[in-house]
């Protein structure tokens, strides 16, 4: 017993510490000898868009084997922007991130670095390759703050079978042009006669869908919304009342339901309970999966003479960091440009209009039906009003959504709705900007 080497508690602890230390040292050495660049990328794409984004990320991984890329997908909407703002404020943000162009008013001031146009030109990308309205939105005080990947406007989906039976198709099998609000409502009524349910599937109880339809019609009516710090809001009340009247009239229970929620609207269209669907182009996947006969077109001209459609752009930004490693920054440029170049799959699968003209004008994209039908919408996009609380997934969209839901469900008249929204805007502006 005494001659055998005894394993005491102390020797065991010593051995463990020594082994652990050795392992730690060797792992550090391994990390340093690899010489790879670590690149962190954040995005908010889940569902079908998420799969397409993974394709873009994988394509870049294939192009740059020397880059160790970590891609993180977070929940879309205000939680994403909260996390990103906090990460930026703490100086430990990702190297590259996705952002809606409409959110640049808040982030563009202090939290992001601008894109160096010479660096982009060296990679073959120049600003004039993007649609003018999108350029206007991503350049702030002459600095390019975001690199647009796409434009995604409000579009009109239609079921070709139902519309044919309702006599709404032209000789070429596509939807006969709709040129006024009355024609739109009438088309909805006729589609409802065919389906026996409703004519237009519309997320009346959904903030996002309601805001998109409201902002498109409001802009077509010539409405403007300026949000000066300190208030009051400079808003065209008559246009607001008229836009809300259109939504109120549409949600009469026959043309469209006044209570359909966000996920239920595409589901109603996919199950052929409605002849039309009003939402962004990303629901093309839902319609394709359901294998229904459908097509898509630009949101029609209901009022005035410019067919404005509420839109936003997914774009890439460079969050500010405490220290920037040039090799990592260079990899971030490479990755963003790679994703722009490969955006045909993104467009074809997700319905988004590619921002880069080289892709948007390519024969491959033009051959993609029905999604290239509404490519002209990129020239008449209506971005959200500029303000720190405005944009996709913002407080404005959420709060305006509350008002619009009230109008859609007929709890509010259009006049009450307009006063409610303007009253809130004034109050919000009085609080002062956090910028």
């Amino acid at each position, binding site marked *: 017993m005494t001659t055998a080497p005894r394993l005491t508690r102390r020797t065991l602890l010593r051995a463990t510490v020594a082994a652990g230390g050795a392992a730690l040292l060797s792992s550090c050495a391994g990390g340093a000898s690899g010489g790879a660049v670590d690149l962190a990328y954040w995005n908010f794409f889940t569902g079908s868009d998420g799969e397409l984004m993974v394709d873009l990320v994988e394509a870049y991984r294939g192009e740059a084997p020397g880059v160790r890329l970590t891609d993180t997908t977070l929940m879309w909407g*205000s939680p994403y*922007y909260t996390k990103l703002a*906090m990460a930026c404020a703490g100086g430990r943000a990702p190297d590259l991130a996705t952002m809606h162009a409409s959110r640049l008013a808040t982030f563009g001031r202090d939290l992001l670095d601008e894109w160096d146009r010479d660096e982009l030109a060296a990679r073959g990308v120049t600003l004039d390759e993007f649609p003018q309205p999108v350029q206007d939105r991503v350049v702030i005080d002459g600095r390019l703050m975001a690199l647009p990947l796409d434009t995604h406007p409000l579009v009109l989906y239609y079921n070709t079978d139902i519309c044919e039976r309702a006599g709404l198709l032209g000789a070429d099998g596509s939807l006969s042009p709709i040129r006024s609000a009355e024609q739109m409502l009438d088309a909805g009524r006729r589609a409802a006669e065919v389906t026996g349910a409703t004519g237009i599937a519309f997320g009346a109880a959904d903030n996002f869908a309601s805001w998109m339809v409201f902002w498109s019609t409001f802009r077509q009516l010539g409405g403007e919304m300026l949000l000066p710090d300190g208030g009051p809001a400079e808003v065209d009340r008559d246009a607001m009342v008229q836009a809300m009247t259109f939504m109120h009239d549409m949600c009469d229970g026959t043309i469209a*339901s006044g*209570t359909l929620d966000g996920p239920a609207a595409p589901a109603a269209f996919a199950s052929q309970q409605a002849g039309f669907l009003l939402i962004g182009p990303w629901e093309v996947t839902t319609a394709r999966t359901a294998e229904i006969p459908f097509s898509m077109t630009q949101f029609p001209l209901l009022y005035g003479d410019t067919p404005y459609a509420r839109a936003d752009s997914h774009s890439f930004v460079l969050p500010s960091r405490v220290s920037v490693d040039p090799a990592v920054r260079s990899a971030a440029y490479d990755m963003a440009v790679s994703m722009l170049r490969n955006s045909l799959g993104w467009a074809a699968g997700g319905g988004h209009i590619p921002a880069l003209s080289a892709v948007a004008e390519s024969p491959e994209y033009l051959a993609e039906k029905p999604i290239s039908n509404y490519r002209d919408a990129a020239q008449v996009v209506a971005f959200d009003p500029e303000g720190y*609380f405005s944009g996709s997934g913002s407080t404005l969209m959420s709060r305006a959504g*509350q008002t619009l839901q009230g109008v859609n*469900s007929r709890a509010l008249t259009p006049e009450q709705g307009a006063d409610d929204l303007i009253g809130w805007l004034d*109050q919000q502006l009085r609080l002062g900007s956090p910028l």
Partner: protein
Amino acid sequence: MSTSSTVRDPGATAPGSTGPQRADRRTGRSLVGGRGGIWFVLPFMVVYAAFVLWPLLYGLGLSFFDTSLVSDESQFVGLDNYARLLGDSEVWRTLWVTVLFTAGSTIPLVAIALVMALLVQTGVRGQWFWRFVYFAPFLLPVATVVLIWQWLFSGDFGLFNGVLTGLGLPEVGWLTEPEMGLWSVIILTVWWTIGFNFLLYLAALQGIPDQLYEAAEIDGAGGWRRLFSITLPLLTRTTALVVVLQVLASLKLFDQAYILYRGSGGPGGSATPILQYVYDTGFVDYRLGYASAISYVFFVLIILIALVQARLSRRSES
């Protein structure tokens, strides 16, 4: 909590023989007086200071600045934030929503929990089953609970509206009507958290000595008489505890309402609690200083409520 133990304790220490011995042992090796005690408390104190005390002080400091999440500079603004919130109708509106929720949820959460505990205590068969069924929802995470209820409440496909239609009644916009928005949150919360109050009541009921009931029965008291003269009076302390815990829990309303309406605040904002307004102000609109001021006003209100409740329960005891 249990009445029986408070009755027994004085009796146990009364015999003189055991008392002094116990006291001797305590003075010999006490952790309280010795130097060793601090090391046992320190880990907790460090965590408590870092994650509770420091943020509390830091937040109080923030409320005097116009600190923003998206801007580097911030300025001392004195009491401006507090002055501003007095005129911010959204603060008072959301505070009222929180108060309504607290009143609307505390009453059923206490009353129904008591009835459920009494029913189980009457000796129905399969006690374990009822205990489990009543308590099970409390074990579910909030996201799961809300997901289930979103489907139940759904306007077009929901079970509730399906049943109403089947009975020939009109559909209810559980999640779309401003009048219903907060009630849907209350119904969900009652289902979800009633198990906890139920358990407290059940434990208290089991602590009531049987001989009290036996004596009452011999004196000819019926079931109702025993309920009102023995059970309910002996549950007074438990009720006070349950009400205090429930009021404080209800005032903290945030997660279920936030998830149920995906952060939108419900139809017409009818289900926006003040904590969501604090969250939105601070993290969505990036106005951290102002959000801190609102949360401190709410904090003071909660302390006032707790003090009033403490005084009321002390008076009822004496």
